């Protein structure tokens, strides 16, 4: 079969293709974004959802319909999608549903380094974790099989190094899968309390059966060493650990939940010293110790950041002496020609208190602007800005501005916009939507506001200013902050002076995406010109 050098993300896409996935959906988020893009390039049906919750629901629906569905997101995206995910554990699925959680230990491009292995326990869902691209491919295929066999969503947990690292992958022959079909199962899928109570019991039964399966599945890899040191590990850490301690015995766990506790017990008993080596929280170590198995966990400093071969050597040596600082490189910054420069200059000049959001524009927090006072979560700029307005003394409340990017606004900013109209602060409020026509930070993905699909084809377009007017915001303006020099500052000053609700859409294409956007717009216009229906309209 074909051997290729693939990233972990590309390997999951290849598995989705070879595993007969009918629909892939998600929201862009580093390091998960490339999965759906690669799946689309391979000919799969892939689409961006407005946010992870909607993506999860579309995936659940597809799997209820008997399809194989793939839903991708970064770790913090699972927080957004958790509501449907937890109850999908009760309903189970008819086809197959695999959810990729792409975690970011070390926070290369994230606001926290939460360890999403805890989600498997909390939701009661099986979780697999690969250590390189070949395993990403194999375990993604295994996850679809597992999901179908136990009729449960399965979480494939990846981390930045697995997602973006490249290694050699051998693909298998594509599978023939069942065609989607609807089967009515009201008690199984309508989670009113009377149906949900037995559903919870069904879930626990499935998990008990999965735990028994985990004890014997060949997915977990055990190798014998000299019998002195035994290492229980998972994910990319297994690769670091093999290099750090080539003579040790290894139990590499691919089923991080449920754990094969009896297998681990026997392994620990077979070596003189058994150490659990894992990145992030002591997730494995806590469960293993709770089962009464004597293992050593890593010292606390190794909870933080990524592990590597050197850090694993330190863990094994119980060395907690200060670690060398990684090279202090140049931090990323707003592009020189970024259309947001005049926005940040104006915010600074007007001494605004800025409730910010997540995207490229978060880089405005760095010098020279230091133009952001808060940044918590996707869409949070609205709620946080409103909270500040509600409680601050009037002279400060009137300085508060919420700023949010176009894709982030569609993601979860819309809810905050509704809150702004429903619970308006006495001093009013000003929202600036930084609309650069793309999801810039993650590599210029489309979103509902661009009016183009993941594949850059024309589709329904959501108007940000139209939404703002429709929900009842009094002052809604659209301005090009580059073309109208000084205009943005004047407008912002005027709106801050009013005790009313205002939305300013600062619209100018991202400098990195502008050429592509023109190309896609032209392609759409050409297609439209050739279309008879459009002429008749």
């Amino acid at each position, binding site marked *: 079969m074909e051997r290729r*050098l693939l990233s972990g993300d590309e390997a999951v896409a290849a598995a989705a293709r070879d595993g007969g996935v009918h629909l892939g959906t998600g929201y862009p988020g*580093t*390091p998960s974004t490339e999965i759906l893009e690669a799946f689309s390039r391979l000919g799969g049906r892939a689409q961006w959802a407005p946010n992870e919750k909607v993506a999860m629901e579309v995936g659940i629906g597809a799997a209820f319909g008997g399809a194989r569905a793939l839903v991708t997101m970064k770790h913090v995206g699972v927080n957004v999608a958790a509501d449907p995910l937890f109850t999908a554990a009760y309903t189970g699925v008819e086809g197959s549903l695999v959810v990729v959680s792409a975690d970011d230990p070390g926070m*290369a*491009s994230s606001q926290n380094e939460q360890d999403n292995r805890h989600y498997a326990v909390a939701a009661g869902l099986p979780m697999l974790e690969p250590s*390189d691209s070949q395993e990403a491919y194999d375990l993604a295929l295994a996850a679809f099989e597992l999901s179908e066999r136990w009729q449960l969503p399965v979480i494939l947990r990846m981390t*930045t*190094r697995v997602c*973006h*690292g*490249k*290694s*050699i992958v051998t693909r298998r022959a594509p599978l023939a899968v069942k065609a989607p079909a609807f089967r009515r199962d009201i008690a199984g899928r309508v989670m009113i309390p009377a149906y949900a109570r037995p559903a919870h019991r069904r879930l626990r039964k499935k998990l008990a059966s999965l735990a028994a399966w985990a004890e014997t599945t060949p997915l977990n890899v055990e190798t014998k060493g000299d019998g002195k040191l035994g290492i229980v590990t998972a994910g*990319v850490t297994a*690769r*670091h650990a*093999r*290099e750090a301690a*080539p003579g040790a015995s290894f139990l590499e766990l691919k089923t991080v939940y449920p754990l094969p506790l009896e297998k681990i017990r026997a392994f620990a008993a077979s070596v003189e010293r058994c150490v659990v080596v894992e990145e992030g929280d002591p997730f494995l170590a806590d469960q293993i110790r709770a089962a009464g198995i004597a293992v050593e966990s890593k010292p606390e400093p190794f909870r933080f950041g990524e592990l*590597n*071969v*050197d850090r694993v050597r330190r863990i094994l040596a119980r060395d907690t002496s200060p670690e*060398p600082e*990684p*090279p*202090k*490189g*140049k*931090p*990323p*910054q*707003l*592009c020189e020609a970024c259309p947001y420069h005049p926005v940040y200059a104006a915010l600074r000049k007007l001494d605004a208190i800025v409730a910010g959001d997540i995207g*490229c524009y978060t*880089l405005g927090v760095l010098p020279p602007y230091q133009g952001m006072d808060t940044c918590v979560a996707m869409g949070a700029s609205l709620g946080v800005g409103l909270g500040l307005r509600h409680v601050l003394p009037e002279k400060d409340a009137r300085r508060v501005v919420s700023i949010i990017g176009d894709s982030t606004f569609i993601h979860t900013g819309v809810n905050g916009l509704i809150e702004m109209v429903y619970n308006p602060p006495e001093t009013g409020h000003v929202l600036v939507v930084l609309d650069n026509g793309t999801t810039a*930070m*993650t*590599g210029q993905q489309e979103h509902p506001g661009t009016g183009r699909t993941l594949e850059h084809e024309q589709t329904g377009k959501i108007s940000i200013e139209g939404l703002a007017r429709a929900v009842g915001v009094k002052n809604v303006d659209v301005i090009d902050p580059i073309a109208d020099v000084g205009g943005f500052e004047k407008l912002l000053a005027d709106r801050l002076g009013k005790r009313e609700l205002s939305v300013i859409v600062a619209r100018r294409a991202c400098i*990195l995406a502008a050429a592509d956007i023109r190309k896609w717009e032209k392609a759409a216009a050409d297609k439209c010109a050739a279309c008879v229906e459009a002429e008749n309209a």
Partner: protein
Amino acid sequence: MPSRVVNVIVAGLGGQGAIKASDILADAAFRAGKDVKKAEVHGMSQRGGSVTSDVRFGDHVESPMIPPGEADFLVVLAPSEVEVTRPLLRKGGVLIPPDLVDEATLPNRKSLNVALLGALSRHLDLPEALWLEAVRAALPERLHDVNEKAFRIGRERARKG
């Protein structure tokens, strides 16, 4: 025990093609039948920040990340990154600095990444033909000529150096 793994770090600033260069190197090693692993962090890198990419190849590679201070070769595309990344190089490791190749001698300044790979190629046991295949596979056809020239200029420069 696996035979020795070759560790190469490519460093630069976002937009300079450090990741592209590491892709080409990884592909050349893959074409030569080596086990290859590659690791990098991207996401914010396009915004002009520091970028490093680790490429490791040999008979069998475990971790995709090169332990600090264990790089055999350090290819640096930006002058500002030389001192920052130097501690990643092992004692006796080879630095391939950006000024090894005079950008003015290149048909296109943007090919500095490929020119420095040409210089690196002098030190590695990978056939030149596979390097050029990897260069062509990584770039659109209109850029093949300038980059092949850049590769040869770098390769020539390293021989003199």
